[in-house]
């Protein structure tokens, strides 16, 4: 299929203002393809007010639902030892449906200062400092082998869910909360980590760990932590200069688009790569420089590890941190479908081999008196629709045919007829939009319908992206 179209949609891994791209779409060097980006979309789902204090419930229950029936987004699970892949049936999802029957075993009130966008620091930060047993703020579960007690266990058919049950308002919680679970199955250890969009009222859970394997799942560590700040993000789509190579090898960060037509099948080797939450440098921008407008002191460090960046940018967008409510706020304006397309279908940006684009959240301005926040997380979804096609469309030409000859092009592997015709001037030209090239094909010529007659002519050729011209030499059949 010469051209295939895909769509990726989700909240990604982390809406960072600290230097990483939210996502990058890359067309690898040597792919032999080009990528057409049709649209980039940003969806603001936040409804909560600044003083909202969520209560997070953690429950364990049984479910008959399969992974796909839960909806939402898949959360990748990492193995501590890659020799032991995760047993099938164990999945994690975020922003997903969950059945009501369950037994609550933990509850956390996430504290937020009511007068600013700063989250309570006791629940903020890396694990070793704020999630020790007697620490302040958030609670955690720890059940390593030294504990003389059963760990919280998800037997086959059971799930663990993390849900905001505070109020009857969807997505009121714009709080940046991270959920992490480390668990043991069949003697091996795995972990997953998500920054979900906590929802309430609508029966969805921010996070679900589902065990439909044949093994019990022992939860060794589980914690919720507040992460980052909640600043208004400033989204830009920028050309990619380079992307952290480690990210490209990290299956946790790599996602695939869904074909808009199942006939296309899933993406194949050499197709563009979508990588989430990746360190990157934009094209043609050094790591450090000061713009002319700079006051001279480092007041804000944006996604580029620079300040005052104004480099190549395809577009910018303030989706606005304000929330969606019954009144038509600026946040609400990011709600309507037609209004939340960052780039609409007329965008049609082409990524040639070795090129890419990234969506980044950067400093609002470099002349602020205080540094920008490190995380712009809130309930955002992102959409991306793109096509993949050969880097060039090959043309098959033939010359020297006897006028009136019939010609045909077939696939060498199957004999499938690709095209046929009759030449009126001794030449033919056919633009091939079929399968990806290179491809072995057969060209046939015959003139047997009227005198002078010619013997059948046949040649096999190797069609590449450069196309081919076939000089035909027919022999009289008399």
């Amino acid at each position, binding site marked *: 299929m010469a051209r295939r*179209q895909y*769509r990726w*949609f*989700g909240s990604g891994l982390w809406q960072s203002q600290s230097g990483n791209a939210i996502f990058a779409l890359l067309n690898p060097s040597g792919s032999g393809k080009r990528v*057409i980006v*049709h*649209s980039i979309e940003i*969806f603001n*789902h936040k*409804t909560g007010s600044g003083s909202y204090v969520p209560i997070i419930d953690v429950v364990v229950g049984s479910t008959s639902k399969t*992974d*796909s*029936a839960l*909806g*939402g*987004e*898949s959360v990748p699970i990492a193995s501590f030892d890659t020799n032991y892949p995760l047993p099938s049936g164990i999945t994690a999802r975020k*922003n997903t*449906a969950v059945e009501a029957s369950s037994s609550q075993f933990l509850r956390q009130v996430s504290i937020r200062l009511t007068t600013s966008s700063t989250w309570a620091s006791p629940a903020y930060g890396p694990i070793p400092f704020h999630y020790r047993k007697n620490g302040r703020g958030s609670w955690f579960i720890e059940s390593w082998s030294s504990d003389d007690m059963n760990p919280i266990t998800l037997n086959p058919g059971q799930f663990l869910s993390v849900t905001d049950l505070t109020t*009857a*308002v*969807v*997505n009121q919680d714009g709080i940046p909360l991270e959920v992490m679970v480390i668990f043991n199955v069949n003697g091996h250890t795995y972990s997953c980590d998500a920054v979900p969009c906590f*929802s309430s*009222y*609508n*029966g*969805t859970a921010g996070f679900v760990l589902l065990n439909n394997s044949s093994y019990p799942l022992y939860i060794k560590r589980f914690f919720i932590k507040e992460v980052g700040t909640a600043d208004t993000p400033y989204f830009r789509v920028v050309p990619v200069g380079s992307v952290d190579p480690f990210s490209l090898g990290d299956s946790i960060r790599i996602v695939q688009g*869904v074909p*808009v*037509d*199942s*006939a296309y099948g899933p993406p194949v080797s050499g197709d563009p790569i979508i990588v989430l939450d990746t360190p990157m440098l934009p094209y043609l921008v050094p790591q450090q420089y000061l713009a002319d407008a700079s006051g001279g002191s480092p007041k804000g460090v944006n996604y580029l590890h620079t300040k005052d960046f104004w480099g190549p940018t395809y577009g910018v967008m303030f989706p606005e941190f304000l929330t*969606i*409510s*019954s*009144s*038509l706020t600026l946040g*609400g304006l990011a*709600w*309507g*479908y*037609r*209004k939340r397309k960052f780039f*609409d*279908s*007329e965008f*049609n940006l082409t990524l040639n081999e070795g090129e890419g684009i990234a969506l980044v959240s950067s400093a609002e301005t470099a002349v602020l008196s205080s540094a920008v926040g490190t995380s712009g997380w809130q309930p955002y*979804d992102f*959409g991306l*629709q793109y*096509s993949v096609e050969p880097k060039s469309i090959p043309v098959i030409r033939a010359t020297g045919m006897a006028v009136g000859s019939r010609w045909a092009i077939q696939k060498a592997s199957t004999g499938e007829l690709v095209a046929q015709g009759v030449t009126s001037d001794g030449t033919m030209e056919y633009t091939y939009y079929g399968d990806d090239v290179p491809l072995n094909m057969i060209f046939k010529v015959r003139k047997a319908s009227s005198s002078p007659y010619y013997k059948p002519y046949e040649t096999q050729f190797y069609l590449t992206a450069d196309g081919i011209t076939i000089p035909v030499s027919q022999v009289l059949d008399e």
Partner: protein
Amino acid sequence: MAATYRGVVVGTAFAANKSMLTLFNGSGSGLVLRVKRIWMLNNQTAAVTGVLTTMEIRRISASTGGTAGGVVKHDSSSAGLPSQVTITTGATDTLTSDPALMRFMWSNDEPATGSLTNDESECIPALACVWDCTGDSDLEPLVLRQNEGVSVRHTGSTTVGVADVIIEFTAATS
């Protein structure tokens, strides 16, 4: 020019985890459906206490039951849709493992006269188009081959209010 149809579900009530509109291309239809646009309209006048709730557009692999919606041909000379192509509300759908094609929020509170909140903006077709593959020939529609479908789902649990859902699609043999 492909035969174009519009599936219409009028005044379908919100319910927990309900498919507000399902378009399914069943086995034996002999058709390939291409979804161009979907609208969801807050067309209700009875006073309700609405809330903000959530919707998803999902691919499905099977659909049973539900209440049939209406079908309108853009050209009355187009062929009628075969029985294998169904447009329903409240159907029991089998979701594929694909992630949502789109999530969007929805207020199911009734619109009011003389104000412009999100309740009212949902009544304006230009603003209530929740899926649009038109306007550029390079942008492909969502293709539904046989045994494939699409569901506009209410993923919330609110049970008040109603909405109209309209899906615009073409049907062809290939």
